[in-house]
């Protein structure tokens, strides 16, 4: 009898089930279609634990959040009217998306060469490169951010060095978009490197010499052969970094000034500071909806690439 393999889970017929089916069709004259039905739904039972967890801890609260946004303090859309008519909200929403986009681009520019390097070095070096990427993940984000704070502040070592060696006054390394982007990129980098690496590792290296053989210069070969093949990794990494970036709170609070504060701070303020849950939940739903729209647009742009499988076609 056949093991329950990948093909069965995905509903693809494999040879062993086909053989079973031919045997089964002998019993009571059942058609092949009828026999296939029970074979296909049972694996979906495996989804029950995930479904339970997601519906209890994500879906139910999400519905509650949405309901509050249209019912607190009274039933109606007053919270959304407030949301769109308060300039602060729109300024901060725009800033949040812009910051996250900037961080995504920075991460991509750093991660791509790094991930490429990982595909060409020896196993030993690759393990080390991987360790360098994973190591920060094991350290508290708060500790790392406070370390940046100490390094970047006006009276910190970097500005001290700049002043002593080059004689330039304290640069705005902190309380600036630079500081926030630096801190966020450092935290989010692993989420870009890993998907890109897994995509690059699957690209057949012989394709580049093959392209050269057909007359392509290295740059052409890279942009017409290598880069398109790595698209799934780029999209997966960018989407992950972008979405995670939208929710950052502590880094903008510590490394930015009031002019870098992002949406999560606004929500926290409405929920815990002002106890305006209608406002806070409306902000949350607005962010979720906007993110879904952005994702849909990206999905359209990346048509034909598998966003999360990290599997080249």
């Amino acid at each position: 009898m056949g093991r329950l393999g990948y093909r069965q889970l995905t509903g693809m017929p494999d040879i062993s089930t086909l053989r079973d089916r031919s045997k089964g069709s002998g019993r009571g004259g059942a058609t092949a279609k009828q026999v296939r039905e029970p074979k296909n739904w049972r694996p979906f039972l495996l989804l029950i634990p995930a479904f339970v967890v997601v519906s209890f801890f994500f879906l139910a609260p999400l519905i509650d959040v949405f309901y509050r946004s249209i019912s607190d303090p009274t039933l109606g859309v007053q919270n959304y009217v407030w949301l769109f008519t308060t300039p602060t909200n729109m300024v901060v929403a725009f800033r949040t998306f812009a910051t996250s986009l900037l961080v995504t681009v920075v991460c991509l520019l750093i991660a791509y060469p790094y991930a490429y390097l990982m595909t060409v070095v020896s196993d030993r070096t690759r393990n080390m490169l991987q360790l360098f990427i994973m190591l920060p993940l094991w350290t508290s984000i708060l500790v790392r951010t406070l370390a940046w704070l100490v390094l970047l502040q006006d009276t910190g070592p970097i500005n001290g060095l700049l002043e002593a060696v080059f004689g330039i006054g304290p640069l705005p390394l902190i309380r600036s978009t630079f500081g926030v982007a630096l801190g966020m990129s450092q935290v989010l980098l692993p989420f870009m490197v890993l998907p890109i690496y897994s995509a690059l590792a699957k690209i057949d290296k012989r394709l580049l010499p093959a392209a050269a053989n057909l007359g392509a210069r290295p740059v052409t070969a890279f942009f017409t052969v290598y880069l398109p093949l790595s698209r799934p990794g780029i999209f997966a990494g960018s989407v992950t970094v972008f979405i995670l970036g939208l929710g950052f709170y502590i880094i903008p609070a510590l490394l930015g000034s009031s002019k870098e504060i992002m949406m999560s701070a606004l929500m926290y303020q409405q929920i815990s500071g002002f106890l305006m849950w209608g406002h806070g939940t409306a902000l949350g739903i607005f962010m979720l909806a906007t993110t879904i729209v952005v994702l849909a647009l990206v999905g359209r742009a990346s048509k034909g690439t598998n966003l999360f499988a990290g599997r080249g076609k």
Partner: protein
Amino acid sequence: MRNHNLKRQLNAIALGGVATILMAGCAGGTETPPVADRDLGTPVAGVVADGVFDGVTLTYAASGGIFQDGQRDAAWDPFAKISGATFLQDAFDAGKLKAMVDSGNVTWDVTNATQFDTARGCGTLYEEYDYSQVDISRVPEGTITDKCMVPNILYGLVLAYNTDAFGDNPPTSAADFFDTKKFPGKRTVSQSPYVDPQTVEFALAADGKNVNDVTVADIDVAFDKYRALGDDVIGWTSGSQAQQQLESGEAVMGLVWSGRGYGAAAAGAPVAPMWDEWMIMVDSTAIPKGVKDPQAAFAAVNFYLGAEQQARMTELTSYGPVNVDAKPKVDATLETWLTTEHLKTGIAPNIDFWVENYDALSAAWAGWVTGS
């Protein structure tokens, strides 16, 4: 056959899922038995009878750090030891409190909130005090500002300055905070998610305005004063950040909680307070609405207000005692930061005005902390 095994496994997983749902449903339904009224007699601040709260568990929720640790060591743990109760500590968050009260499942018994919080939430988020169960005869005059609180600590929003920068010519008024010619350098001011009316009042005081004559239009005037400082003003979003900015010299001046200024000075930073014009702050000890055992909560607060407990609390936290008989033994550094010595030059907040105009204030505050 293997397929049968698989089927059994899948059934087991499905059953497990159902069991989890059922268990989750049951866990929420536990009811605590009603509490009998104990005869505790007339309360005396700082006193509780031996073993009277055996088996009772109380939870104090406050803002953490050495502040909450000090209060725990000075009052809550000794109360637990004598009365037989168990005292737990938790982190306070106003949003969490609202969630508890709304869902009718209140797990905190005593909390630390601001005067404005309790004035605003009295009767909805906070329980009214039964002052016959708490001895308030020794709390400083004027510190009970609504029916849902007794004072928790007496502290201040003070101008703290770097003595290396301004030691010879220190600031002597609220207006000096805004005078970047006479006092050049960066100054830090609250941009925390929590609205602080007294940050607004400080700016108005700098203009010579009496806080009792504040109008809604003054709110923008105050924030514009801070905005006019331009690049010379930086924000703090938490007390620890304020302290860090003073300690590192990042800010040569700051409008900070007195305890945080003291924290910087105690760590060796050249930081001193300006007492000529400062904002008196009183925090509330409040009891959440729907608390399970009000009698035990009142008794704990009554114990907290004892002279001995308050003296110890001040020694451990640097925040001023709320019992006039408290005689804390403090060193020279702490003495310079003790608000209780400078009440004459302090400005008390116009609480009624801010409770009434909270929406206008919170909208302006949201703009201030998001740089728009």
